[in-house]
C-alpha cells in the first residue's frame, strides 16, 4: 500500500495511475491558485501541515522505541499519516478562520483538502529523526508551495490583470496590470488553465533538472 522506509507515502493506486495523482493532488491546489494571496495561504497550509505531520509521525516512531524502524504495518502507516495530516489540516483550517476569515472563505472547501494533497503529492515523508523529518518536509513543501505561488502569479496576471497580495499600510493589496485588466485571458482562471500552467512549470523544472544531470555526467 505504501512505499517502504522513509519514502513518500502514497497509495499504490496513486503511484500507478498518474491521472488519479493529478486529480487528487493538484486539482484542489490548482483551483485555489487563481490569486497570489490565496496561493500563499494554501502554501502556508501545505508547509505547516507537512512539517507538523512529518514531525508527529517521526515522534510516534521514536516513542515506539525503535526510531526508523516502524513497528506498524504499511497499511496502518498510511492510515496513520492520513489521520495525523487530517488533524493538522483541521487545526490549520480553524486557525485560518480565526486569523483571516476572508482567506478562509476564499479557500473554502479546498482548505481541508490539504491533507489529501499532501498524501497525493508525496510531500509527507517520514524520517526517523524529528529535526530531519521537519527539514525534509520543509524542503519538499517549500518547492511545492513555490510552484503553487508561481502558477497563481502567472494565472492572476494573465487571467485577471491583477496581482493580489496582503494589504499593508497605504497599499490596498492589489497591483493592477492595466494592459491586461480590460481583456484578460480568462481561460487561465479556469481549472484547465491552472493545470496547463502547472504542466508547463513541471516541464520547465524537469528540463532544468535534465540539463543539470547532463552537465554533471
Amino acid at each position, binding site marked *: 500500500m505504501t512505499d517502504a522506509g522513509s519514502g513518500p507515502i502514497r497509495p499504490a493506486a496513486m503511484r500507478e495511475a498518474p491521472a488519479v495523482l493529478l486529480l487528487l493532488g493538484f486539482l484542489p491546489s490548482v483551483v485555489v491558485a487563481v490569486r497570489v494571496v490565496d496561493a500563499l495561504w494554501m502554501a502556508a497550509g501545505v508547509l505547516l501541515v507537512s512539517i507538523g505531520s512529518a514531525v508527529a509521525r517521526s515522534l510516534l516512531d521514536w516513542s515506539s522505541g525503535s526510531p526508523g524502524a516502524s513497528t506498524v504495518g504499511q497499511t496502518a502507516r498510511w492510515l496513520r499519516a492520513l489521520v495525523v495530516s487530517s488533524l493538522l489540516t483541521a487545526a490549520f483550517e480553524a486557525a485560518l478562520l480565526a486569523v483571516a476569515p476572508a482567506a478562509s472563505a476564499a479557500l473554502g472547501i479546498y482548505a481541508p483538502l490539504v491533507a489529501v494533497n499532501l498524501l497525493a503529492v508525496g510531500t509527507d515523508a517520514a524520517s526517523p529523526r524529528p529535526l530531519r523529518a521537519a527539514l525534509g518536509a520543509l524542503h519538499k513543501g517549500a518547492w511545492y508551495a513555490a510552484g503553487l505561488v508561481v502558477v497563481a502569479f502567472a494565472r492572476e496576471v494573465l487571467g485577471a490583470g491583477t496581482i493580489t497580495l496582503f494589504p499593508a499600510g497605504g497599499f490596498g493589496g492589489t497591483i493592477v496590470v492595466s494592459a491586461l485588466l480590460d*481583456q*484578460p*485571458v*480568462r*481561460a*487561465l482562471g*479556469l481549472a484547465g488553465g491552472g493545470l*496547463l500552467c502547472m504542466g508547463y512549470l513541471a*516541464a520547465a523544472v524537469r528540463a532544468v533538472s535534465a540539463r543539470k544531470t547532463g552537465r554533471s555526467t
Partner: protein
Amino acid sequence: MSSARMAWLASLGLLPAAAWGLLLFGPPAAAVLVVSIAAAAACELAVTLPRHGYTLSDGSAFFTGALVALMMPPAVPLYVPAVASAFGILVVKQTFGGLGRNWMNPAMGGVVFSFLSWPGLMSRWAAPLGSAAAGAEVPPLEALRAALAASGPRDVTPLGVLGRAGYPFSPMDASAVGWVNSHVLAPLGAALPQGSFDILVGHVAGSIGATCVPLVVAGAALLLARGVIRWHLPVFYLGTFALLSLVFGGLGTGQGWFAGGPGFHLLSGNLVLAAFFAAPDPVTSPLTDTGRLALGIILGVLTFLLRFFGSLADGAAAAILLGNCISPLLDRWLERRKSRVMEREAA
C-alpha cells in the same frame, strides 16, 4: 499521400469559403486571416527552426492559421486570432512533439481557448456586405437564442422565430423566397420561410468562413475526391446532429417532437466547416472507418447537447476537442474487439 500534400490540399479546400468571407466582410476579415496565418507561421518557425529546420513547407501551420481565422468573427481585435493561432501551434501542437503527435486539433484548441478567454470579443460580429439594417450584425444562431430567451418558446420554426423577432433579412432574400414560393412551392401547398435564401447562400453575419455552407461543402468535396479525408466521420457527424435536431430541436421552440428545423441548424454556425475541416484531421481522428463512424455519431451528440443546452452558441469546436480525447480509446477498443473476433474465428 504525404502530410504536406494533405495540408496544402486542405488549405486549398478552404479557399472558396475564405473568398466568400472576404467578399462579405471586407478588409477586417482579410486582416484577421493575414494575422492568424502569420502568427501560426511565426510560432511554428520560432519553435522548429532551431531544432528541426524549416517546417513551414509542410503546410500544417498555414492550415491551422487559416482555419482559426475562418472561425473568427470579422470584427474581432487582431490579437485574438494571433493568440488563438499561437496557442494552437505552441501549446496544442509543438508541446506534444509537433506534427503528427498532437492529440487535439490545434485550430480547434485555439478557437476554444479564445472562446473561453474572451467571450465578449468572440461575439464582435459584423453585418455582411449590403446589409445596413440594425441587427444585421448578429448571426442568426445567436439571434435565435436571444429571441427564445427574451420571449420564451414560440410555435414556429427557427426561421419563423427570427422573422417574428424582426431579424433583418436582405431584400434579395424576400425576392428569391417569394419567387420560389409562388412559382415552385405554391402548387405543392408548401412555402419557404423568410430568410431561407440568406441562410442558404450565407448572406448573414457569422464567422468569416462559415456563413456559406454550400461553398464549405464544395471545398470539402475536393478533399473527399482527393482522398484527404474519408466520408464516414463528417457524414455521420452531420447526420447524427441533424437527426437529433429534427427529433428534439423543436421542443425548445414549442413545436414538439420531430419539428426542430435541422436545416437551419446545419446552415448556421461553424458546424459544417468544423465537420469537414477539423473533425476528420488524420492525426486526431480514429484510424479505422468504424472508429470514424463511431466518433462521428459521438460528435453529433456532443454538438447537439452543447448547442441546444450549453452556453456556447455553436458548440462544434468544443465537441471536436472532447471527441479528440476519446479517439485513441475508440481505436484501442475497436482493435481489441477485432482481435477477439479473429481469435474466435481461428478457434
